[in-house]
């Protein structure tokens, strides 16, 4: 069963015992061709462990408003199809719906994207990757949950390996309902998201940083082989 605690509240479910990291992630000593010995600590060498910071908005409201307008009108989606709903993203790029005319583009790298669309059910395995991808995106960033699976588990409600409520693991700005939602619903959702961003309410990244411990506890509750640092930008 999943943990269900409100942000700020203490996690009542008991902690799971930590598993030892996989062998390829353990620190080890490597000998180079010229005979030098180097210690390799994959978790330290490849990732950053600094927790996310809260990035305050610009000091002047008028500047922040301008920035928010620009952010709303230039939405770059991380192209990462997480569930069956992802299939509805493709028609959006085609002549019939043509999301590009709204300033919506797809970027295949989390670094350049500012909107993460979780397109449907998230298995625990994918959740791990989704979290890492989300953490690699730059502040401010937004999350849209697509389809009923992200809201209440949908038809995977009693499945053992999918999560039920996305907003326990990532700060969701907007849900788009349906199983699966039509591209029109998606477009309507994106336009709604634009309103949220323009109103300055798209502060999910800061919410994530503020309630970091709570999010991490929830994530670790379902991901059993954690095998990565708590935060990996």
């Amino acid at each position: 069963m999943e943990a269900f605690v409100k942000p700020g509240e203490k996690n009542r479910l008991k902690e799971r015992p930590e598993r030892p990291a996989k062998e390829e992630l353990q620190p080890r000593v490597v000998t180079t061709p010229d005979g030098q010995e180097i210690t390799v600590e994959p978790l330290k060498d490849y990732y950053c462990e600094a927790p996310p910071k809260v990035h305050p908005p610009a000091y002047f409201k008028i500047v922040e408003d301008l920035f928010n307008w620009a952010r709303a009108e230039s939405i770059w989606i991380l192209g990462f199809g997480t569930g069956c709903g992802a299939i509805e993203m493709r028609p959006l790029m085609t002549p019939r719906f043509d999301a590009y005319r709204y300033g919506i583009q797809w970027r295949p790298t989390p670094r350049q994207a500012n909107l993460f669309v979780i397109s449907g059910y998230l298995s625990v395995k994918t959740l791990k990757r989704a979290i890492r991808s989300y953490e690699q995106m730059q502040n401010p960033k937004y999350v849209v949950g697509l389809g009923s699976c992200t809201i209440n588990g949908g038809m995977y409600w009693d499945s053992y390996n999918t999560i039920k409520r996305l907003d326990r693991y990532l700060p969701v700005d907007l849900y788009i309902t349906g199983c699966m939602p039509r591209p029109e619903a998606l477009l309507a959702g994106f336009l709604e998201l634009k309103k949220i961003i323009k109103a300055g309410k798209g502060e999910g990244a800061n919410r994530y940083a503020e309630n970091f411990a709570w999010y991490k506890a929830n994530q670790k509750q379902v991901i059993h082989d954690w095998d990565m640092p708590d935060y990996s930008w």
Partner: protein
Amino acid sequence: MTFEWMKIPFALLTLFIVVNYGLLLTALMQKIAARVGGRHGIPIYQNYIDLLKNYALRSAITHGFMFYLGPVFRLTGGVGLLLFVPIIYGSPMFSNMSFAGDLILALYFIFFGSLGMALGAGESGHPYSAIGVTRGLSQVTMAELPLALAVFAVAVQYQTLSITEIVAAQQGGFLHWTLFTNPLAVIAAMLSFLGSMMRPPFDVVLAPQEIPIGPPTEYHSAYLALMQTNRVIFPIAKIVIFMNLFFGGASNWPVFFVKVFAIYMVSVLVGVVFPRFRVEQSIRWFMVWAVPIGIAAILIV
């Protein structure tokens, strides 16, 4: 040689005009490509918003020193190229910092940005970056060859290494353009031009189907914005050189706008019609078609 301080504000003005023209032009080209595909495409001002958005992102992370410098080098390549060639022929204001041997410098600047980018992208550590850089450098090296041959053919033809003098020699009707006096050199250079515009069939660097973003995979926020700025300046700077060397230069801004648009259009037309080459196909293509024409151009002169 005396240095005129008045050149600085005019150089900045040039930069300003070119950045704005570039932002609109690239959006227009994307729109044209979208129309070919039956879409509406992005709004014409979309590039401004994307740029502002990227500068407005609050956080940025770094992968090291060269990672910082990559976009800076890239931008230096574009701006440098623009500032050292005469933009408007016969105008003392907009000839910028051009000087007697500027052709060599221009050739160097075309390559310079790619090298800086290669170092920066290499340090980002992403496998796609490394693959993109390898692909990019092999193609750029290959595409540079016919361009260099064509440029030398032109230099031999006009007996000078100064772009201004080359433009001067082409004045007096379009039949004096290098396009008509030395068509082989122009063909070789235009084939090379296709290779460096990052459009199909030669977009092996970004390779949207295999390594979706290529070298800039790890770049974000302000770094990416710097590179976007360069991406609008650099093609125009390059087109300016082509315009000056082969198409008679431009004696005022309207002519400049029209000619740059027309030359840019060549790569877009080719791009929307053809699918993408693989790396070895593209290199072979340059070897088989562009390089012999370049050599022939030199021999004929």
